[in-house]
């Protein structure tokens, strides 16, 4: 391109409005520093999440152990209670309290309208456990890519 010779101050103007080299340098330094800060923040976030995950994992292990110990204790106490109320123990206690086994001739039967003969035990839980595990909302286990993928599929489906 030819620059018209009748415009002698053009070069001067271009030179005057060109970005100063030191400004360019600062922009570069600023960009690099920004990148470093972003990286540092990501690293810090990653470290934070990692440490929290590790702590949570350890807490889960501790809670599992606590559950196991509680179940063991419960079974143990249940068995101890059964020992304390065993046939032999109950008979001994009854005899010590002055009771004696009843003879067949001593039993008096009364006719009670509506009386229902006791049925064998029912050990079914009153509140039945869930058949399947709780559903975790996707926000807690879905990555960003998974989310985008899902949105794409959903939008295609809508179209």
């Amino acid at each position, binding site marked *: 391109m030819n620059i018209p010779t009748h415009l002698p101050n053009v070069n001067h103007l271009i030179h005057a409005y060109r970005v100063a080299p030191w400004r360019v340098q600062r922009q570069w330094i600023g960009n690099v520093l920004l990148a470093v800060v972003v990286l540092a923040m990501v690293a810090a976030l990653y470290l934070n999440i*990692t440490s929290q*995950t*590790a702590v949570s*994992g*350890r807490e*889960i292990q501790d809670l*599992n152990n606590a559950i196991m*110990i509680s*179940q*063991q*204790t419960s*079974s*143990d106490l*249940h*068995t*101890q*209670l*059964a*020992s304390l*109320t*065993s*046939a*032999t123990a109950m*008979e001994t206690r009854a005899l010590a309290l002055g009771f004696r086994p*009843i*003879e*067949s*001739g001593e*039993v008096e*039967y009364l*006719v009670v*309208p509506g009386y229902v*003969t*006791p049925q*064998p*035990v*029912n*050990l*079914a*839980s009153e509140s*039945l*456990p869930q058949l399947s*595990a709780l559903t975790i909302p996707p926000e807690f286990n879905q990555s960003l890519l998974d989310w985008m993928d899902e949105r794409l599929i959903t939008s295609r489906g809508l179209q």
Partner: protein
Amino acid sequence: MRQQYALRSQVLAGVMAFIALAIIVQMTRIQNSVEAEVFRQQAENFAYEVKTFYPNRGEIYDRNGRLLAGQKTVYEIGVDLRNVKDPHAIAFAISRELEMDYDQLLGALQNPPENISYMILADYVDAQKALNLQALKKALQDQAPSGAYGGLTGLQFSSHPQRSYPENALASNIIGFVNREGKGYFGVEENYDNLLTGNLVQVLIPTDPNKAYEIPKVPDGTTLILTINRDLQAASEKLLDESLTEYGAQDGVIIVMDPRNGELLAVATSRRMDLNKFWNYNDIYDNATDFNPAISKTYEPGSVSKILTMAAALDSGIVTPNTTYLDTGSVMIGGATIQNWDRNPWGVQNMVGCLQHSLNVCMVNLSTQMGANKFYGYMDAFGFGHLTNVDLAGESAGRLKVPGDSDWYPVDLGTNSFGQGMSTTPVQMMAAASAVANDGDMVTPHVLYAMVRDGRQYNVPPQHAGSPISAQTAATLNEMLAISLEAESSKALVPGYRVAGKTGTAEIPVDGVYSTYETNASFIGWGPVDDPQFMIYVWLERPTTSPWGSETAAPVFSEMAQKTVILLNIPPDTIRQQLRVLK
């Protein structure tokens, strides 16, 4: 000047870039070196660990919800060898608390096997003893100077469940036991071992804590509810023990069953074991059949099986209750002479008299009239020679020789008719006789009432084992047996309740010859006759006060029946009739 700084900066930048490049090159080189591959392999090997989750063994309850088998907490005590500071103190404490040898412990602590960091000193330690040791460890640590270690440093405690039987020896023959490896032996523990144990779960778990993993849900083993009534079981065991002493019997069995559905309510045997001390097994039992003779021990049943011969004869129509015959005291069959129990003739007798006086000659006449095919057809239908499929481990089938077997002789048709020359188990006799008490339908004896899994209870439906006789035959025979007991003023009678039943006195073969003095005395009976709700079998082995079932087993039956009606809340006949009128 400015250019000079620029040059320096460029040189510095170049040097730093070179260092950075060198680091990147070195990192790449290390990542791709041969050693890196080895380390990567090692890391992969340790990236996951296989963890096995063991379910808790299912519990066992009686029909009223009384715990018969559960879990208790015991401890494994070991040492972390890297942290042991005072082996003498550990050896001393353990030897005192657990009554172990001090020198042996000290030797093991000072010279442990190579390449181990943890050593088990004792397992299945009682919780109280473990807690005492834990308290001692803490006390020593508290007493140690600041920064120093306590004498029991390195001692570790790990709790785990162990099978426990709160009723100790009660119903041991039914429950069986679990050894320390968790395997069930005998009874319910063996028969339902897979159900009780549950399914163990193995999972690959990442060792990297960042990788979250789901802890698998390991369902406990199935809990079982038995048909057994704990209080009735305790009463039957107590009565059996008293009866063995009273009649000088060697061994014995008492079974109580509901003849309507085959539910075994009590199965008492004379030899019982504290299941919490299962290692005493060899001191108590001579062989496996002794653990639960009610299902495992075969013997010649004797006259109680006359019920079944009479049932076959009535059902096949060759006789009625009023059919008479002339009892001459003996009869020839297969070249052998069969005599009555008292070796006397009883003259003209009808079928009720035949049962009432337990006449062998009568039974031989019946079996020969029926013929071998018909007689053995009925005996087969009653289940002789077959397993009853009772849900307890170790059942024996017994033996019934039939025509065609190499060791069957024509005389067997006669002897089998009154319970000789054949072998059965007590539970087999119960199953067979249930047809008479239950309108002709045989039941399968069983102990499992229900299973509980994941909070849901599944009741087990009763199983019928065929109908060898008609309901009419069963009703007729019921009446005949009740009349025969009443006419005889049997010691088996139960005040207030009409019962049916039959005594049995079987001579025991000793060196191939039947002994006159050593007998199996038995009685099988049920009641109330108009609505049978219990069936009781009593077997006393070699009673010494009297060889006769009518004088030993029959009174035991009566006593057991009296306890049964109280514990099962069965009102006397008069009250039940009133109730029927009200309904």
